[in-house]
């Protein structure tokens, strides 16, 4: 592993995971240590039962139908963005372990085809919402509302997606190669297998991992906490 890769795709990964865990704990503990509001802040009509409230919170958090009613464009881009991101994230776990049940279902070739097609499709699909997220910030009212954090996050995501797409479309790496790299991380001896180490595209992989690390490190200190907090905050509206 070259020095650059060893730092950003090796050491930095551990730092990122550590900061993420500590930061998330700090933020969430901070929420729960703060006293609860003495005033019930729910809006009416409220669900009558606990089960009703539970499902309303899930619906509000995953689908947020009210937002669709008032701003269709933002809602559609948000759903496409978060949906693709979630699938992409889950699909990355194939680089840790093969999804055996899926392979049994589709066969090894079928699985590879699904992975290639799905990855390519989502890799392109996710570009649209992220560009929307960027360009809307140049227009009013977002322009006056935005803070540097907003641009920073979008730009980091664009780098992650760009390098990720490069790997998907142009790099000649196989799932086994990635898996070897991930395994090396898991045993705390980060290294690239030969196929990656000898390819020029290793820079792309290292950069992809580096930007993911930056994203993960920054996550707990950013507005991205909405991914966790949305459930709690939406519950307040139904209380």
């Amino acid at each position: 592993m070259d020095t650059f890769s060893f730092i950003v795709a090796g050491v930095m990964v551990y730092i990122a995971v550590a900061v993420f865990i500590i930061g998330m704990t700090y933020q969430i503990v901070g929420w729960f240590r703060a006293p609860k509001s003495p005033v019930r802040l729910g809006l009416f009509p409220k669900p009558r039962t606990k089960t009703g409230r539970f499902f309303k919170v899930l619906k509000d958090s995953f689908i947020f139908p009210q937002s669709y009613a008032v701003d269709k464009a933002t809602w559609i881009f948000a759903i496409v963005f978060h949906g693709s991101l979630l699938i992409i994230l889950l699909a990355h776990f194939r680089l840790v372990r093969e999804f055996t049940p899926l392979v049994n279902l589709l066969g090894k070739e079928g699985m590879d085809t699904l992975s290639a097609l799905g990855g390519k499709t989502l890799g392109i699909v996710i570009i649209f919402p992220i560009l929307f997220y960027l360009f809307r910030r140049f227009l009013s009212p977002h322009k006056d509302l935005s803070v540097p954090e907003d641009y920073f996050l979008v730009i980091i995501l664009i780098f992650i997606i760009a390098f990720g797409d490069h790997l998907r479309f142009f790099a000649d790496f196989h799932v086994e190669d990635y898996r070897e790299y991930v395994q090396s991380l898991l045993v705390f001896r980060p290294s690239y297998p030969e196929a990656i180490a000898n390819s020029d595209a290793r820079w792309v992989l290292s950069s992809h991992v580096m930007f993911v690390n930056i994203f993960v490190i920054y996550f707990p200190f950013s507005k991205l906490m909405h991914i966790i907090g949305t459930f709690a905050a939406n519950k307040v509206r139904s209380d």
Partner: protein
Amino acid sequence: MESINKEALKKVLKAKINRQLLYYLDLCARCSICRDACHQYTVTKDVLYLPAYRAELIRRIYKKYYSPLGRLFPKFYEGREIDDEKLLDELFTTTYACTGCRRCMYYCPFSIDTTWILGVAKEILNAAGKGCSILEELTNASIEKGKNIDLFKDIMVDMLSETEKEVQQKTGDKNAKIPIDKEGADILYAALAGTHTILPAAAIFHEAKKDWTLSLFEAANYGYFLGDAAKAKEVADRIVDEAKKLKVKEVIITECGHAYRVMKFLYEAWAKEKLPFKVTGIVEAMSNYIDEGLIKLKPGSFKDPITYHDPCQVGRNAGFFDEPRKIMNMVAKDFREMTPRREKNWCCGGGGGLVANPEMEEFRIKTGKVKTDQIKATGATSIVSPCENCRLQLDNLNQKFDLGLDIHSLMDFVVDAMVFPGNK
């Protein structure tokens, strides 16, 4: 202007930080979905009235002092000092413009309660000596009245003797009374200044054969609009203390949105005690009396096309959507609904103390356009709304835009349709 004590302001903010506020400050993605939820932004297109921006002003202070990265790199979050004059000025404009309708909270994907954040802003502004002076004067006057109630009592008794005669005429019962200071009554009714909310309520209570007494104090609470919780509590204390003294079982708040919100949802949190009586809104009470057969309405007795405006503090913030509609459908021959309505209803533009503040008049009328268009679309010639604030604003809009509307309180609407067996 005297210099602002920064440390004191920081303490005010710190004291207001609770779990819900942290969610609101930490989660906002600045997606601006709220922009079309706010009638003020929709009309003005000024970012200052964008709900997310209103909240962002407080968030910038919070980031500067309380977020780990914000302390290190305040620029990254546009972090601001709490005594930043420009920020406080912007905060003043946007905070005292908010009507507290909480429509943005309904549409927000994270349920961020901008009004709650602006409640914190109001506390900071008041501590900085930058609160709204008109609302402060009104608040202080209310508190003074509480201290000198004996001076006002005689005037009130005089005023009530006239109203009592009108009630007797209406009900056809010469013994109909407007009791005040009646110990042991079941109900203490908190009305508004003037007799227009006393007369119909007296007729309703009389017909329903309720043992009630009228509060010496008006329900309105300018301290709440001012956003000074200590003063707002003092204003509300007048009625709470009276209710305790008279040992009533129930306090019924007249058609006044924020007064109901204060008594029902806020007072116990301010006072850190449980109220020894039930708090009911008159809308709910009337609906119950009708269901129990205590008062009877003439079905279909109102012939003109009529619409209903959901006051934010009666609908979205208190949950009374069906009760007034039941009455509307019973009495009106041609009841026309507005779109959107119920929890999605547009604010009239007059809440949050705006109707009490002459400086806000122009802005209030301008941003009332949304409501005006909504009413026009129904083609109704009458409108009912069970909130004094809404009615004052609707009355202004009516005159300004020549809407030719008859504006009714729900109580008047009920009393006009009521059967008085004693009368003829």
